[in-house]
């Protein structure tokens, strides 16, 4: 058996998904080792987000297999993903706009610090202790992403870059071991991208997460990812370390044209 540090956390085997007659994901196979910070890149419409949706169970694949810690999760329901210690963010923000930043994080965190229905309606028993615990831990997470001073602001009134950070905070609150980030830097300016780099690297180092990030910003991916998978038109065209990817002829063709 392989050493634990080299164990494949996530393994996709010949994954295929058609939308109508179009193969959005076509016979994709790759695997990600524990503790890696991997990147998934490719031009628009390459099928990157579809892969995330297949992994997290938003829709099932037409064929193929997804293994997570060696367990088959191909037909997992979305709400069971949390039990598998995975969390994700979305390309188009999916915050709860009418809740405050703090509540957005609390609603995720409370999944691990639950109390009973009776305690909830009477506010007796463990309610106070648990609520304080949830609130304190949520504040810690907001602090980590630099949103502690915005805790009581409604999510939809936050500036765009902060909403992106809040989504990461909410994903962190699920206390996952594997984090999927879908274009975390979309729509950010260069300074914000830099700050995001630091944040993602910090999370990766301190919390020992395995992270798979979809990104368009090449500089971000090349800077932080040690392993990169490149897709185009639903198929994998290259896989390797940043140096290999940068000089791969197929990748250059996909991004720069013939």
């Amino acid at each position: 058996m392989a050493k634990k540090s080299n164990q494949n956390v996530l393994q996709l085997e010949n994954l295929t998904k058609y939308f109508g007659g179009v193969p959005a994901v076509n016979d994709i196979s790759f695997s990600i080792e524990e503790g890696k910070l991997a990147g998934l890149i490719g031009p628009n419409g390459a099928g990157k987000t579809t892969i995330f949706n297949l992994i997290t169970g938003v829709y099932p694949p037409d064929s193929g297999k997804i293994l997570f810690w060696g367990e088959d999760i191909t037909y997992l329901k979305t709400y069971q993903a949390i039990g598998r210690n995975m969390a994700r963010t979305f390309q188009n923000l999916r915050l709860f706009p009418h809740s405050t930043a703090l509540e957005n994080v609390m609603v995720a965190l409370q999944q691990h610090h639950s109390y009973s229905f009776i305690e909830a309606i009477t506010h007796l028993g463990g309610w106070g202790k648990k609520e304080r615990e949830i609130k304190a831990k949520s504040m810690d997470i907001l602090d980590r992403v630099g949103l502690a001073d915005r805790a009581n602001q409604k999510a939809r009134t936050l500036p765009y870059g902060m909403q992106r950070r809040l989504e990461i905070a909410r994903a962190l609150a699920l206390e996952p071991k594997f984090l999927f980030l879908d274009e975390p830097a979309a729509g950010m300016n260069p300074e914000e991208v830099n700050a995001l780099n630091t944040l993602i690297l910090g999370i990766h180092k301190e919390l020992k997460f395995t992270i798979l990030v979809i990104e368009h910003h090449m500089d971000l991916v090349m800077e932080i990812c040690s392993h990169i998978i490149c897709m185009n038109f639903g198929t994998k065209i290259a896989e390797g370390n940043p140096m290999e990817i940068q000089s791969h002829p197929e990748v250059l063709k996909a991004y720069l044209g013939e």
Partner: protein
Amino acid sequence: MSAYTEGIICVLCINAIAVMGVSLVTGYTGIFSLGHAGYMAIGAYTAAILTARYSFYFIPAIVAGGLLAALIAYIIGVPTLKLVGDYYAIASIGLGEAIRLILENGGTFTRGARGFPGIPNYTNLTVAVCSFVIMAFLMFNLINGRFGRAFKACRDDYIAASLLGYNTAKYRILSLVISGFYCGVAGALLGGFLLYIKPLMFDMMKSTELTSVVVFGGLGSMSGTLLGMVIITLITEVFRPISQYRMLIYGAILVIIMVLRPEGIMGQYEFGPGMFKAIKEKFKGDHYSEEGRKV
């Protein structure tokens, strides 16, 4: 206190319990309902039959009314709320009408369209106020905790909520069952207050009234719903002398609020420090720039 004032307070308390239930399901969980009068009817008839015919003590009769309404809500909720969309709204219209028609054609058991007379007068001022206080205490506790946050999450974005580990269908059904219980209890209290109930009291008109009060008070604001209900009930009382024409005023007020404040009287805020802060910031014109500094 005159009997008239006492009566109004009783009506306010009973209506408050019913609209809290509708506010939970429509405002907090985002499920529109046009048939909640049906649950009130179930509660009212259950309590009426148990007390008048089988001489039950009124407290178990009221609870039984609430529980039966909750059970019916569960049965109708499971097939319709597993789907995302307005399927429940459509089903609820059918449900409300079906319950009314079953009661009308219930023969000697429900005494049909002529109504059910001779209900013991168990809803006095104390019972109404105590019921309201207990139900409001439980409801506000519920929404200020993990369930309130979960309901709002399922309302705002069911995909994000399900990826946070929430089985959103389960939460929608739970919300509907609780709201069915509230409406059932309100119906049971109404029977004991009016001493006479008939199926026509719980028609589509009553259902839309419940939902419109929630929209009027603010979707997602429990205290807004209560405030809206008090305003609407008092307006219909104040203009009682002009009889049917008061519905004109009722309609006009709904229209005015919807034009001036489409999010409802209280918007999404609850009565409390958060609301005052929001008002203060609105008047101060506090805005945040893109860089996140106060300007």
